[in-house]
């Protein structure tokens, strides 16, 4: 096998197109946030950049898939894609780490110190009378950041409705959906390895249904928060950490679901064989990764 040379692609216009797309992204995104609230068309540049990113990615992936189908990829090159995906997921892990780190620091140091506890409790003189608690319902300066009326934690759900409250607690159902979907995507993978295409499509389809259900319920939860809980992005540090952590996770679930949807279409088109399907496998790794992040979210954002 090592006789087949490593395929080094010809020069390609795609990376440069992607770089130009991201240049437009910087210009569009920056101007959009700067011009927010005024009449301005800068969001059109942002939308254009998104379109260009998608189109470039489409052609880029199409080309790599065609190269693989043409037999250009030797085993070593296939390993390169495996390494690449694994390290990409590691970078995503570290992105979430930054936000979990922020949450841990806020809960264990910043808020208690503001409340006068601990070695740096001197900070309490900024807002005398402020009391530390978590979830933080009353912020140090209520005039600037009015705290939420109700939080999303398991304890609150239980206290307000007992067992019924827990059953109506949306994150519980989302946990069920996402954990099950991790299992179904694994079954789909096993089916693909057996070469059972029909079974693969069915289980992958179920994974997708569960994934989109998760996104829907997450949307429902956000609606509840904004409409009935008084919990928004602007309600101090609880709302900030809650929405940023669950929001970035939800965004990654969407990405994972889009990836797996594309994999389903590819399978229906006849792509993938029992021993050559890394496109799908990479997608399933990503899916398991968002699942693990969710478990951490449930533990640190919702329960503890």
């Amino acid at each position, binding site marked *: 096998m*090592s006789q*087949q*040379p*490593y*395929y*080094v*692609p*010809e*020069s*390609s*216009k795609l*990376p*440069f197109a992607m*770089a130009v797309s*991201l*240049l437009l*992204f*910087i210009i569009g*995104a*920056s101007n959009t*946030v*700067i011009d*927010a609230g005024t009449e301005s068309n800068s969001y059109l540049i942002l939308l254009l950049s998104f379109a260009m990113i998608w189109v470039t990615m489409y052609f*880029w992936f199409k080309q790599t898939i065609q190269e693989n189908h043409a037999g*250009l990829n030797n085993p*070593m090159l296939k390993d*390169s894609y495996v*390494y*690449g995906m694994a*390290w*990409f997921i*590691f*970078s*995503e892990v*570290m*992105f979430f780490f*930054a*936000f979990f*780190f*922020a949450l841990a*620091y*806020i809960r264990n*140091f*910043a808020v208690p110190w*503001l409340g006068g506890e601990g*070695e*740096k409790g001197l900070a309490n003189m900024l807002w005398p009378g402020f009391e530390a608690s978590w979830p933080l319902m009353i*912020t140090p*300066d209520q005039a*600037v*950041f009015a705290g939420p009326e109700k939080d999303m934690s398991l304890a609150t759900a239980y206290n307000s409705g007992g067992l019924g409250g827990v059953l109506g607690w949306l994150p519980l159902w989302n946990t069920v959906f996402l954990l099950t979907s991790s299992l179904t995507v694994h079954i789909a993978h096993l089916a693909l390895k057996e070469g059972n295409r029909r079974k693969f499509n069915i289980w992958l389809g179920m994974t997708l249904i569960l994934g989109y259900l998760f996104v829907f319920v997450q949307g429902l939860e956000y609606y509840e928060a904004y409409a009935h809980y008084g919990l928004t*992005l*602007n*309600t*101090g*540090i*609880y709302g*900030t950490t809650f*929405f*940023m952590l669950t929001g970035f996770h939800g965004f990654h679930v969407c990405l994972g679901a889009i990836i797996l949807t594309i994999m389903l279409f590819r399978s229906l088109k006849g792509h993938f064989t029992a021993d050559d399907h890394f496109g799908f496998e990479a997608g399933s790794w990503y899916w398991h990764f968002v699942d693990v992040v969710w478990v951490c979210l449930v533990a640190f954002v919702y329960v503890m």
Partner: protein
Amino acid sequence: MSTVVETHDHGHHGPAKGLSRWLFTTNHKDIGTLYLWFSFIMLFIGGSMAMVIRAELFQPGLQIVQPEFFNQMTTNHGLIMVFGVIMPAFVGLANWMLPIQIGAPDMALPRLNNLSFWLLPMAFGILISTLFMPEGGPNFGWTFYAPLSTTYAPSTVNFFIFSVHVMGVSSILGSINIITTIFNMRAPGMTLMKMPLFVWSWLITAYLLIAVMPVLAGVVTMMLMDINFGTSFFNAAGGGDPVLFQHVFWFFGHPEVYIMILPAFGIVSHIIETFSRKPIFGYSSMVYAMASIAILSFVVWAHHMFTVGMPLAGELFFMYSTMLIAIPTGVKVFNWVATMFRGSITFETPMLFSIAFVALFTIGGFSGLMLAIVPADFQYHDTYFVVAHFHYVLVPGALFGIIAGAYYWLPKWTGNMYDETLGKLHFWLTFISVNVTFFPMHFVGLAGMPRRYPDYALQFADFNALISVGAFMFGLTQLLFLFIVIKTIRSGKQATPEVWEGAGDLGLEWTLSSPPPYHSFTVQPQVK
């Protein structure tokens, strides 16, 4: 012998013609060249900003620029030198040398490699353009502490934030490519512990980059949300904490410091063994030392913020963990010295820069040890002593490593020997001016001159005049370097494949012709 040509009709006959060669290339050497030239251009842009700073500080009082513009100069000088000069130069060297040193045909993911490069001119183009916007560019220091960079920032901070995102994407993709190349593409027989030290240094650096660049993306995202969407990460009124910014930033920032020095360790190790005509002393301890430095870099970040008000236990922990880093670093310095000990040393330009690296980097290391001591740091914090410290590790450290590497490998890249006389002249002018510039900063810093101000008390005037003279001398000397590089590309004595006497045994790069063929190892060599 099978070659890549057989499998592909278009053929790999050589580079494409004209501009499209550079825009669309997937060749690791072309991309390495792009990175190196980009970094060189940015060196002069960031350098001119330093010249503005030094011109203003030549005398006390305000003469040339307003404080607002002075702040933009210090900020952008730092950002450009860190993200636009040192890092891209190392990535350029990695692109050129890694595939050759491990016997690979190219980088593992060549198209991704092109993207990693071209994102940089985009991001820096935008960043520099903010200087010409009505509100001016980033003015909050290269560490962009909140709330200076959030509540009190000009609206152009948003351009800065998205540019940093794109720089981060570039670094992450580049590092994924490098790690994949090193793990997957080594020639048969090249076990991990037979890899050249430059390859090792980059494996560890790339790991650090993938680990911390997303954290930087996270912290600028928090800024973006605080500025535009009403969150309160860094606003105590909502229960957040501006100090949180510093923690997250330095969790990125400290490993970043080692990202900027580890590849130089690798380069200098090669050069010292070549010109001492002895294999490197303590190869495995060199590897373990770099790995230890990398691991420790994750648990020392708060030594950048001792004065911010941490619990005593935190100060002690970060003080001791920081001091611990002196041990693996000391191992490396002693190994370099032991390599030279009883070697048949000759002093070609790369060797001169490398010896200067060992001596001057050690000075930077010692002042770092002084800064690690909490009670002493309370005195030194945010003074010119800190400026002296990190310029000693970054200029005669990282930058000397890069320049040494450039001289060492230029004959390999171009096929021509550089002008040794001019190279030595470049070295001595650089060596003298770098010390004239940065050494007196220790004194004014210890005497209490704060950093990042456009003016200073009168008693610092003499030293500052001296520093400015040194800085201009240093800046002008680098034009000589530019001249030498261009001269070498255009003409010069034909270089042999091994270039340096006896280098043929030291690595695969010296077994290829000078310059190497467009595609280096289409068939992987066997390593014994």
